[in-house]
Structures are given as structure tokens and as C-alpha cells.
């Protein structure tokens, strides 16, 4: 279900697809574009990705969430290109029998996303300036023998 899109994220579809008869909790996280950063006025964010690897990394997070937490599903969609103020650049939706696991998994998925997915964002400032946001270095995963 991991997806990269070039248009506004359809959060209503995500929510609808996540709802399941066996689940009592759905947690939806949206990362949205803020109008300020370090005191400067921001007019938008622009995202780029190494697409095939980013989709693979997002799918790995979805699977990892389902392995680590008592959840039914985790689905992640990231938008690329320019994302205007207050629109969502990323959506993570988790469905679970109980809410604790849903919150934990959603939060974990976002932490992982910021650490392991080859996507980059540039802030577009009101004065016409733009700057890449300081990021997190990618590191190769531990050898397969260490995996869960």
C-alpha cells in the first residue's frame, strides 16, 4: 500500500480503507506544511525522492509496524513536489484492535520514515529564498541475521 503521489493526499480514502470489522481503533497522522521555520515565513515545501527506493523503504516500514505492534494494517502515503501551507505531505494510517498499539505503531512509523526513506524537502521562503532542510544520514541496515 506504500505510495508516492504527486497530488493532494486523499486522506478520506485512506481512512475508509483502514476501517476494518476486527478493529476498534484507527489512528491517522498527517504531516502538514507549516508557515514558519526558525522565525522565517515559509510559503511551501518541495519534496523529491529516489522513487523506487523510497517506495521500498515505506513498504518496509509498513511491514515493520505490523511485526512490532499488535495492529491489523499500516499504510503510508508521501506526497512529492510542491506542498502548499496546511496541506499534507505525508499520511500514516494504522488500524488495530486497541488504541495503544495504534498510537505506538503510527508514531514509530513516522520516526522510521524520517530516518530511513530517501525523500528530501526544501523550504520555500516568503523572500524568494529556498533551502534544503537539514536531514538524517541514511545508514545501511544491520545484517539480515539481526532482523526480527
Amino acid at each position, binding site marked *: 500500500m506504500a505510495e508516492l503521489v504527486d497530488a493532494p493526499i486523499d486522506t478520506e480514502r485512506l481512512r475508509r480503507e483502514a476501517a476494518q470489522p476486527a478493529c476498534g481503533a484507527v489512528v491517522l497522522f498527517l*504531516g502538514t506544511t507549516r508557515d514558519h521555520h526558525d522565525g522565517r515565513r515559509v510559503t511551501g515545501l518541495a*519534496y*523529491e*525522492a*529516489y522513487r*523506487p*527506493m*523510497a517506495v*521500498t523503504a515505506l513498504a518496509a516500514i509498513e511491514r515493520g509496524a505490523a511485526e512490532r505492534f499488535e495492529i491489523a494494517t499500516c499504510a503510508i502515503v*508521501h506526497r512529492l513536489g510542491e506542498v502548499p501551507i496546511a496541506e499534507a*505531505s*505525508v499520511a500514516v494510517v494504522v488500524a488495530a484492535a486497541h488504541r495503544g498499539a495504534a498510537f505506538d505503531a503510527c508514531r514509530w512509523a*513516522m520516526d522510521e*520514515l*524520517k*530516518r*530511513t*526513506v*530517501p*525523500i*528530501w*524537502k*526544501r523550504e520555500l521562503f516568503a523572500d524568494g529564498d529556498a533551502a*534544503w*532542510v*537539514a*536531514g*538524517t*544520514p*541514511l*545508514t*545501511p*541496515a544491520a545484517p539480515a541475521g539481526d532482523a526480527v
Partner: protein
Amino acid sequence: MMTVTVLLFAQARERAGLGTILLELPPGSRVTDAIGAVRARHPALEPLWPHLAVAVNGELTADDAPLAHGGEIALLPPVSGG
């Protein structure tokens, strides 16, 4: 000779002024050979190298892996998705 594609993203793409570099390398070349060739052509990338991760055919690698004809190397600055 074999052909290897090098993809550059974000700051790396911007500093090099292009997103794709095609390299012709002798058979038996490894990742460091490809990186050496990119460095020679694109000195503007120098300040970035300590911060770049390298993927070969979509997999991060810390090793000096051997390359094959048609292979794809990606130069990946620190990520900032979300």
C-alpha cells in the same frame, strides 16, 4: 568498458547541476572507482561527500561493492521526508 548510471538527489543534484551521470568504467570497477570518477568531474560536490550515503541498485551499501554493466548508483544526502 561497462556503463554505470549515477543518480544525484537534493543538494547533490543541485551542486553538480544535474541529476544523472553516465560513467564508462573498466570491467571489474567497484563503487570507489565510480565515486572517484564523479569526484574528478564534479569538484562542487566536495563538501557533501562526508554526508552522502551510497546505494547500489536501490540498496544502501557501506562496502566497496563490485559494479556490473547497467548498474545504478545513487548518491543520497541526509534525508528529510515527512
